[in-house]
Structures are given as C-alpha cells and as structure tokens.
C-alpha cells in the first residue's frame, strides 16, 4: 500500500477511536463528581448556583450533556476554561507550543544519549561500565521529577547562578513587544526575527526543564536499547556478518543497532506522547506556561471542561504520534510493509 493511502486510512480510523475516547472520558469525568463544582463557591446563593446548572446544562441527562459537548467540539466550540479564562481550544493552542518545544528538546537530549549508552552497555555487558550505567539508569527511573527539578534549580540557579529558574524568557529584559509570534515556537521565532539574544535567553530558560524531562527518557531508553541490542547480537545474521569478516563497526552500526532500534522506537513514541501529556511537574516547578501546568490546575480545580478538552487533544496527538512511529518502523525495518 502506498504511504499516502496508508496515512489516509489511519486518519480515517482515528474518527471511531476519538469518538470512543470522547465517550469514555466524558463518562469518567461525570462519574468523578459534579462538574458544576468548578463554578461554585461558598459565597454563592442558591439562585446563582442554579444559574450555573442551567447555563452549562449540568442538570440534564448525561446523554444530553454529551451531545452538547460533542456538538460544540465539532463546531469548534470546546467550551470555556474556567482556569485559563479563555475558550478551551484557544487555551490548548496557546499553551501547546511551549509543551511541544519542551518535549522535543527533552527528546533531542534523551534519544541520542539513551540509545548511545544503551548500545555501549550492551557491547560491554557485565563490565564495570555496564554496571555503572545500569545503576544510573535505575536511578533515572526512580528519581522523582520534582526532586530532580528542585536540585537542578538549587545548584544551577541558586548556587552557581548559571541558568534561570523559571519562565521561557527574562521579562525584565524583554517585554511582550519583543516577543515574536510567527510560529509561536519561541526557539524558531526568535531566530526568524534574527534576535539572537532572545534566542540564547530562551534556550537557557529551557535547559533545566528539558534536562529534567529527559532524565527519565534516557533511563528507559538505556534499558530498552541494551536489552534489544543483546538480543540482536545473538542472532545468526550477526554471527554470519562477523564470520564474513565485516569490520565490527559496520556489524554494530549497520546491522545490529539498526534492528535493535525497532522496540526502542516504540518506547520513544510512547515517551513522546507521555511527555506531551505529563510534563505537569516540570512545567509547574519551572513555571512554564504550557499544557501540563494548565491541565494540573484544571484538575485541582475540578474544571471538567478544560480536562475533557485536554484529554481529547492529547488522545489525538497520541494517535498521530503512533502513526508516525509506524511509519518510522517501515523506514528502520524494510521488511515492514504498511497496510
């Protein structure tokens, strides 16, 4: 099947997937409590509370509520985010670039380091290097994100004064007028307008969050890549390649690592999706105005409209990332046919 047809087919399949996801998340959100809770406070009169129920149809049967919500989604009205004080779709689009940029940077750090160390440990199995990296990888999986973030802040911001602690740029040096909004990815926009100072300032602000988020990714990739490499290295075709007298570098880089990357790619795809939806603590500690901070706030304030919009959006992104992973499979392993 041609790639374009495969992509079209997968995109069409997304429709029932998203309908299913929307039904599940909507039902779950209503099962967890009264959605009006986000709008009600101690000072409100009974009449004011009633107005909230009427305005958002919270008194109507669940199926009606779902219909209003789903119809709104299709018409581009994702509801009102009480936390962001803006429409949910605008809230997502406004915050997504920050989260996506953070995720891409953390992946850019995590993937080469994780794959390289994973490959190296497999080649040095049961030697000192292997043990050391495995311990580090175990620590990487075990260390709580908030703790790592606070330690980085303490060392690199407070003690060494090397990196800024919060935000995506320095508001004392740059005012809102200085911030370009071309793609909404500041790392790109600052370069597009030729503001190198802003570019450096922005990247410096993203270093600690990216390192924090990449730590867990590195740890997982090391373990997956190591195991995968060990498996591949024992396969007959590797032995054949070595018996044919191919240089070890060619055997490892061309034949072994490439095949070992297939399970790693799956994990990368999953980690990418998880980072997009789960950068909550990182964004909170580094005060980054991304999706994670907003969704965490929405959850703690029972803002079900925001939570629904966020989950649906992440489900969509996850599905697209999975599609991308499947396409990358075909690239990595020519035996794989898309269809």
């Amino acid at each position: 099947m041609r790639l374009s047809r495969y992509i079209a087919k997968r995109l069409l399949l997304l429709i029932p997937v998203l309908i299913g996801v929307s039904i599940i998340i909507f039902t779950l959100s209503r099962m967890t409590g009264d959605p009006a809770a986000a709008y009600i406070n101690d000072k409100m009169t009974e009449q004011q509370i009633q107005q909230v129920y009427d305005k958002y149809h919270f008194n109507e049967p669940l199926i009606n509520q779902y219909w209003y919500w789903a119809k709104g989604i299709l018409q581009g009205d994702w509801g009102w985010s009480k936390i962001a004080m803006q429409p949910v779709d605008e809230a997502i689009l406004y915050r997504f670039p920050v989260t996506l940029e953070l995720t891409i940077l953390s992946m850019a750090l995590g993937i080469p380091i994780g794959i390289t160390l994973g490959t190296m440990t497999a080649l040095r199995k049961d030697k000192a290097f292997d043990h050391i990296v495995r311990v580090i990888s175990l620590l990487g999986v075990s260390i709580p994100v908030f703790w790592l973030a606070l330690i980085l802040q303490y060392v690199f911001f407070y003690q060494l004064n090397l990196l800024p602690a919060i935000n995506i740029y320095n508001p004392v040096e740059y005012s809102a007028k200085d911030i370009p909004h071309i793609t909404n990815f500041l790392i790109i926009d600052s370069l597009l307008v030729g503001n190198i100072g802003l570019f450096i300032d922005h990247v410096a602000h993203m270093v600690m969050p990216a390192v924090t988020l990449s730590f867990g990714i590195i740890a997982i990739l090391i373990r997956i890549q190591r195991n995968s490499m060990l498996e591949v290295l024992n396969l007959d075709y590797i032995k054949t390649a070595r018996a044919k007298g191919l240089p070890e570098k060619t055997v490892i880089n061309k034949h072994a690592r490439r095949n070992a990357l297939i399970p790693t790619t799956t994990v990368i795809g999953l980690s990418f999706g998880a980072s997009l939806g789960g950068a909550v603590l990182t964004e909170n500690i580094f005060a980054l105005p991304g999706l994670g901070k907003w969704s965490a706030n929405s959850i703690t304030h029972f803002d079900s409209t925001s939570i629904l919009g966020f989950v649906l959006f992440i489900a969509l992104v996850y599905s697209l990332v999975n599609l991308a992973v499947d396409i990358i499979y075909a690239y990595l392993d020519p035996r794989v046919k898309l269809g």
Partner: protein
Amino acid sequence: MEGNADAEPKKAGGSKIIAIFIVGLLVGAALGAGIMMVLGGGEEETVYKTVVVATIGGNPESLDPAYDYETVGGEIIQNVYETLMFYDGGSAEVLVPQLCTEVPTVENGLVTNNGHVYTYNLREGVTFHDGTAMTSEDVFYSFARVLRLNDPHGPGWMIGELLIPNYYDYVWANNRTIATEFTSQDIKNKVVVPLYPAAEFDSSGIIKEYTGVSMDAIREHIWAKDDYTVQFNLTVAFPGWNYVITFGVGSIISKDYVEHYGGMTKAGYDYMFNHMCGTGAFSLEEYTPDSQFVLLRYDDYWKGPAKINKVIIMQVPDDNTRLLLLKSGQVDIAAIPRTLRDSIVDDTNIEITEGLPTFNIDFIGLNQKINFNTTASKNTNVPANFFADKNVRLAFAHAMNASKLIETQFNGAGIQPNGAIPKGMFGYDPEVPVYTYDLKKVKSYLENASNGEGSNYLDEGFSIDIFYNTGNSVRQAACQMFKAGLEAANPGKIKVTVNGVEWATYLQLRREGAMPVLFLGWAPDYADPNNYMQPFFHSAGTYASMTGYSNATVDLLIEEAAAEMNKTHRAELYSELSWLMYGECVHIWTVQATNFHCERAWLDGYVFNPMYSGFYYYPMDK
C-alpha cells in the same frame, strides 16, 4: 504490519548530526546564558533597581472591574484603575480622597437627604492612560456599564442593591408580568426568568433591552451634575456607601477608550476583559495567561510618577521555587507558606511582616433545618431541627477547641474571632467573649437540651454524621474536635461520625442542605460591618438563610445599624448586636487569619491593609 525479509536495508540518514546539533545548542546556550548572567551582573542590577518583581497565584477571572470578583484580577485593577476614594495607608477604616477632592460626610454637607444622597467633587487635571481627561461623564459611564452588565456572579450587586429600587425583585414571568412567589424549581423549569439578568446580547452584540439594569433607572440614580460633580441617589440611607465604591467595582474607566472598542456591547465587554485604561500609577503593558502581568509606570500620573518604572507579577506555582527566587533576589516579593518560615527567618536580606489581622473569617454554620441525605447520614438519629435549640448550638460551640485549631492547623497564625465583625474593623467590640473549649459547659448545655421525648441529649445521647471535603485538613481537624469534645460528654451514648467526602459530593450535600455543620469562610466585599452582619444573621442573608436562622428582632437591629448615620450610635448598635449574637450562637467562629508577608529587605513602601487586593505598588521603592 507485514514483514518482508527479502527487502534491501536502507541507509541511515543524518539524524545523529541533528541530535548532536541540538544537544550542542542547548549546552552552548546554557554556557552563553551563564556567562551573560555572570558577566552582565552589574548592568542587570541597575535594571532591577527600578523594577519590582512579585508572584501571584493564578489567572484573573477578568481585568474588567464590572466583572472581576476575586483577588488576582483585583490586584491588577487596584493598581491600574482608581476609585473615587482610597484607604489611608494601612487603615481600612479611614478613607482619603483619590479621584474626588473630599470624602463625603454629613458634616461637610456632601451627604444629604438623611444619608440618601452622596455628592462627589472630582479632582481636575486627572488623565487616563489614553491621555483623555477624567470628567463626571467617565464616572457615570463606569458605574453604568457595571449595572448594564449586571453579572450575577460579579460585584455589581454591591452598588445595585443600594442604587436601584427593588434590585432583588429579580423574577419576571415569561409573559413579562412580575411573579410574586417563585422557587428555584420554577427557574430551573424556565417558568420564570430573572427580571434583570446578566446582560444578554442580541446577534449584533447589543444588550437586549430587557436585560441588565435599564439606563433610565441608572440615570435616575447617578447624576453627572457638571463636568466635575457627580451625585449618587441611594434608595436607602447607608453610611457604608463610601466603602462600597472603594472596592474595585467603583473603578473609573475611560469612557472614550471603552466606546472606541465597542462600548456597552458584547464586543466592548469582551475587549475590556483583558484590556485596561484607568488613571492609576501604572498601566497594563502585558498580560500573558499562566505566566505574568507587566505594569508600566504612568508618567503623567496626577500624584506624580511612581518611583519604580515597572512591576512584573509572575505566576510561580511551586512553593520551593518561589523561596529560591526570593532568597536569590530575583523576585522582591513572594508568597511563601508559613511552613517554610524557618528557611528565611534568619536571612537578613529578607523581611517578614506577620501577625496583622486580615478581615477573612472562617466559621462553622449550624444548620437548623437539616434536609438529611439518608445515604450519607446513615448513623444520624437527631431531628432536622436539632440545631434550632440554642442549647445544642452552645454545646457544639464549647466542644470546639478553636485556639488549638489555630495552633495546630494555622501554625498559630490567626485570632479566634468573638463574632462576625473582624478585629480591626469599625464596630468590633473587644469586650465580647469567645467560645472556649469547656467540657462542663458541653454537658450542661446538652442537659438543658430536650430531646423531645421527655429526656435530654446528655443522658439519652445522640448520633450524628458530620462531613468535610477530603484533603482539607483544617475541616477534618475541626470535625475530629467536635467528635472528641462531644463524645467525651457521655462516652458510649453520644456518637459523632466524621465522614470525608469528595469536594463535588461535599457541594452536593451542601446544596441539598444535608450537612448539619457547614464549614464556611468569608472575605469582605467592603470595609463595613454590615457586610458581615447582614449575610451572617439577617434572615435574608446568605448564611442565615442557608442555616435556617431567622429572628425578627435581629433583622430590625441589623437594618437599623446599617442605616444609622451617627457613627457613635452606629458603633453602639453593632456592639449590641455582637452581644446578642454571642448569646444566640448561630455560628461558631473559628479563625480570623493573620498575614504573612515576605519581601527583600531592599524594598521600601510595602503597606499591609486588610482591604487591599494583593499589593499596592505606587509607594514602593528600592
């Protein structure tokens, strides 16, 4: 996916090079920024000297004074807009003229018609941030747009109930005849609709004629007498009026600016949601949701420009990050929780101001008309009117150890209130005692409380379910105190079951009226004791009606005190009310919170006023 073992492998691309480039970029930028931070320290310090950086808790509901009714937006509104009067430094009781030239009083002849008419002479030479001059037209327009919008969840009621006749006759039948009686079910079923609901806009964005308060009604009660004189004609005599319009809802907005962006239409209100044009010492330079506000000094400010040229107010959700920012000097003011006090108390670069009473009161309402939810209250055997007996209420009051609650749950940062009026506010009577934890009194009051079956609640005992929302440790501790204090009076016979429920369930139980004890809190809208007495004790007040308390004598006394123009006599009336309500024990007062403020020692000009929304930056310098 299908496998094909015969296919030729493809060559790997240059992804490694890209990855190395990105890693190198990050490391390079980190080093570059680090070097810039270290080498550029001197210059940065100069810049920082004219900037105050503070932290804030979240996004505002709105930046429009007609709509906003919370403190985040309130802080920005307080610094960008101005009201006719403002508080005198740290005093919430003394007002000083701001956009007017004299605070109206009976003595200076600006309050007339037995307290019904307030006249304000406006200051001349005041300009808005758009450069236009402020006149009485702007004052009229600012109040009119609040009343036209008439947002039921906003602050409009504060001026509406005093200015507009029958403001709370909200109900209007579909055939536009006024219904005399209605229930919430009627509204739910759309049998009746509000007479003056929040503004509804037609398809072209114009406010529908019958929604919002009519312009005719507004014109009847707010007069722009000449360019610099405005008169408010109140429907009732109310000495607290000056305080009402000193709240953000009384902010004066540039009419020209608002009209330019749509005026009193949907487009106009939408625009003013996050745009501002006031007369304050700072203008709004930037608002980035989830991130920051930037306020710029207004050089033509009528009092003279502020000493600092920029205020940056950032959202930093994490407590420890805020602590590091404050300790490093990157921010000048940060909200630090009291639990981290030990981390900064010995730091000579940081100053702490604490222990000053706020006007926020936490209390426990005792529901005199419980509508039991049989599923949630399965252990309860008391009648619905259990708390209608004053003896039962007093027994509960003496079972609560409020001072211990303050000590354990608030780190001692609070005062036990002696009634509805907080310490520091006009009308507070320090002689009124507080309810103390006293097992003897618990027993005595329960003994006096008849159980309706020829015995009393002490000897026969009782069983009751009480609720708190899970995660709220203060409410949980208070419930446990009730349990300990009451069960000790007659172990085995008195049983208090403490139930932790989710917030949504908690609200649902509250809506049903199913909770015997209600944990409630109150922050003032304006600095007048009526803003406490009325909602707490008047039969039409929010909390009195919520707990089913009604007392005609108390109602009359509250109304009399509210309208009394003689200050001395008014204070006596509030004292009388406070003593009366101490005996009635309608609610149990648990804590009046005190402040905890942390700032860099180099910052001058911070003033604590319990009526401020956040900080007032104009006097600040460093």
